[in-house]
């Protein structure tokens, strides 16, 4: 994948409207955040689809705990 994990994390955080800057880190277990909601799941799917042309489903999100795992999954599907 063309971008590094840090940049992926930063861009993802920007997409998640209302999330406080710096909340998301590569090791953050993102769906255990207090502010996490079902809308964020759709935002993640849309972010990955429009930026990396990778289609994730709800199960993919459930299978990834941290942002790094999400990044690795997307990377594995872009290669």
């Amino acid at each position, binding site marked *: 994948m063309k971008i590094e994990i840090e940049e992926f994390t930063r861009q993802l955080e920007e997409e998640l*409207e209302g999330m406080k800057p710096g909340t998301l880190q590569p090791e953050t277990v993102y769906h255990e955040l207090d502010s996490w*909601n*079902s*809308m964020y*799941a*759709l935002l993640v*799917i*849309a972010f990955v*689809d*429009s930026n990396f042309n990778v*289609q*994730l*489903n*709800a199960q993919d*999100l459930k299978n990834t705990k941290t942002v790094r795992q999400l990044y690795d999954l997307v990377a594995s599907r872009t290669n």
Partner: protein
Amino acid sequence: MGTLTISHLAYHLPDKKISNLELQQRFSVPESQIFRQTGVKTRFHVEGELMSNLAEKAARKILDINPSLASEIDALILVGHGFEYQGPITAALLQHRLGLKKDCLALDLPQGCSGYINALAVCKGLLSGDLAGCILLLTADTPSFAISSDNLELLSLFSDSGTASVIRKSDEEGHKFVFGTDGSGSEFLMVKRSGTVHPPDVEWLQETNMPHGKMQMDGSAIFTFALKTVPKMIEEVLMKNNVKDDDIGLYVFHQANSFLLESLRKKMKIPHEKFFNDITEVGNTVSSSIPIALKQAADSGRLNRGMKVVLAGFGIGLSWGATIVKY
């Protein structure tokens, strides 16, 4: 082979209007959050009306000011869910109530979000086969019957409604369709306990008080399906009709959810001015959403006669369909 044109359009929304503030008070969820998740500010639910009442009221908006039309209509198609009897078809009841002639074909078409497109395809078949010359295409849905009173996600999204379109033959070429069906995704959006499989019993009714079944939706699965399917479908329908993006005046999609529509628009790089989104004031009206959007676009001056419009429906089934019409 000839094609079709939409000569008249009308819609009807029930009187009961539900605001985000009302939902905020009921569910203790901020109205800003409800709006952010759906893009909807108001939705409409019936109080005592049935599917046929909604369709009839929409049709009367056309027939009352064009009384001679009733004798021209030789096919009546009613699209939606929530038909009133297992038999007879609800379209037959409407043929009588609307005073249509007796030598008129009547069909119920049980379809959801892609129903208007599929019905246009049936219209094209009837018109090009000289089986009908003037068709009254009605859509009507009462999703509120099947939404649990504790389900904010669905309550905030869906509206009851009815529409009427008069469809006639046109001499222009084109008007090719793209269709798709994938029943493997049927569980993603389904009205459980609404038919002959596991019908409602006493225990169910005592527990839920939902005699018409209960709608269940896996929002992220539907979202993923649409993101994957719709852009490909649009590309295909443009190619099949030999039309370039520049020739298209307006894109009118099933008004599923504002966030999904915006994601699709961005992915397909369609400029805002060519993409219609009216979900804010009306909500997701299932099979009625495309004709309501067309009517609103025409009334607001964004859709003019002669303009080429891409129409696309997608959702429950899973099913999808698209075509291009010259308005």
